[in-house]
């Protein structure tokens, strides 16, 4: 029975050949992907650094205390950003005041209370669409509704009109991120609450919301960061570009940093381009502070777990 044995040996040889490890080329592909991903990261960081360096190089020379505390002027060396800075702070505070209760409330309703029917699905689709509408459209809506129709209340082209317009712009973002934060909370947490005889509101207030706060905060700050840089809707609503006073109330005229920067960049004199760069540095610093606060708050609330 020699043939049997030899055929078995052949079998064994064939079995080994079912796999070709080919480790060399698999590791090569590994390396290629590593460098490709590294390259993608590098290019985006490089662009960002280049942007920052040119802005700082242009703007640092004219950035001083006088620039921050002065009102706009026809002469670049006297011009300052205080009106726009305070205007932006006003607008941001008002936008936060309007969007946090409305957006978070709507998010809670849609995620925790609303039943799944045609109405809520319609609302959901529309909110998703609204998040993608160009900001100039919101500006025109704000002009028509807040600045014109509601003029007796808002005072026309005022801080209040601008803030309401920007609130409309970021409400969908706040609602969507609130819902996502709530959806990330495991259902077992809700069941634990219900099983102890809690009502729906007790479950949401005591367990779901505290657990979702970091996520909700992140969404709100990201939305506010978008609002702080918006120029088009504010121009449409009619924020002024040359203002030599600080807003005194909700119905006061105002300007905001992106508008001031846009205005300076558009001037023919080169000096104004330098102070525009200074303005951008101030705007970015403010953005950085906002994001820093967001990160701090998020870590603070997560520690309580």
């Amino acid at each position: 029975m020699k043939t049997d044995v030899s055929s078995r040996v052949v079998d064994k040889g064939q079995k080994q050949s079912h796999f070709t490890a080919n480790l060399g080329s698999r590791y090569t592909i590994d390396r290629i992907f590593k460098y490709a991903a590294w390259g993608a990261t590098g290019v985006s960081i490089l662009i960002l650094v280049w942007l920052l360096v040119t802005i700082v190089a242009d703007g640092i020379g004219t950035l001083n205390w006088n620039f921050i505390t002065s009102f706009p002027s026809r002469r670049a060396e006297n011009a300052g950003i205080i009106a726009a800075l305070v205007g932006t702070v006003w607008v941001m505070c008002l936008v936060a005041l309007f969007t946090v209760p409305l957006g978070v409330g709507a998010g809670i309703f849609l995620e925790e209370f609303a039943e799944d029917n045609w109405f809520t699905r319609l609302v959901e689709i529309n909110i998703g669409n609204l998040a993608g509408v160009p900001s100039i459209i919101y500006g025109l809506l704000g002009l028509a509704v807040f600045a014109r129709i509601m003029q007796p209340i808002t005072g026309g082209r005022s801080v209040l009109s601008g803030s309401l317009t920007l609130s409309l712009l970021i409400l969908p973002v706040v609602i969507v991120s609130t819902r996502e934060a709530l959806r990330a909370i495991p259902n077992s947490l809700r069941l634990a609450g219900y099983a102890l005889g809690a009502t729906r509101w007790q479950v949401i207030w005591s367990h779901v919301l505290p657990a979702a706060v970091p996520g909700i905060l992140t969404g709100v700050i990201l939305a506010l960061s978008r609002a702080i840089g918006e120029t088009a809707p504010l121009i449409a609503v009619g924020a002024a570009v040359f203002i030599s006073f600080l807003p005194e109330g909700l119905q006061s005229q105002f300007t905001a940093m992106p508008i001031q920067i846009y205005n300076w960049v558009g001037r023919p004199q080169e000096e104004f381009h330098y102070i525009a760069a200074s303005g951008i540095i101030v705007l970015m610093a403010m953005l950085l502070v906002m994001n820093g606060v967001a990160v701090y708050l998020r870590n603070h609330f997560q520690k309580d777990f």
Partner: protein
Amino acid sequence: MPTPLPSTSISEVSDSKTIALQMEKVSVYYGSNLAVKDVYLEIPEHEIVAFIGPSGCGKSTILRCFNRMNDLIPSARVDGRILFDGEEITGKRVDPVELRRRVGMVFQKPNPFPKSIYDNITFGARINGYQGNYDELVERSLRGAALWDEVKDKLQESGLGLSGGQQQRLCIARAIAIEPEVILMDEPCSALDPISTIKVEELMHELKERYTIVIVTHNMQQASRVSDRTAFFNAVATDQGGKMGYLVEYNHTQDIFSNPKEEYTRDYVSGRFG
């Protein structure tokens, strides 16, 4: 067309025992799907009753009827009569929030609140208007769940910092803090290691003195170790291609495991399927 059920054998609880929970012809639907059909069941006070059976046989679904957790699933519908202490607990007139104070529940995966151990225990008491001393309540509940000695020095630390077995006992402590009459346990040990499982099983024996316990388990050895009575559920394929659960046999645990009346039960407990 209703699918006819294979034969079933349900022993009645003798007259001398007080019945804590009772089901009469209970069926549960998810949407138009019949998930469990025609369950008759009597659960006596201060006993441990185990629900066993293959996956999808509806044992967890039936368990959740007792504290109306199925209300939280919009598509779920429960037919039939369910009695707790002789009073019907289905229907609009009974408040599920009040019912769940009296019928506590422990889940498959330990799910302590992401709060301190102390707050985990006091939450249920607080929302249900507990009048007594909270420090005493915490100690009493943790002692009741055999956890006090392990956590008494770190009551203000997060419940999530405990081991899996400790977390599950914390969940039991949390459940008994609101002084329920019944504790429902949905596979309470399936996420635990063997040592933690033994601790929870020993705890169940102690809890039996004061509470009625209904436990769903995949582990037949566990059912035979801890329970006084066992209900065996099985599933049959329906015409629509789904599964429908039904109660095959309900009797003293000893009889279910050593002298089953139904062939399906015998096959299941001897490990021939499931």
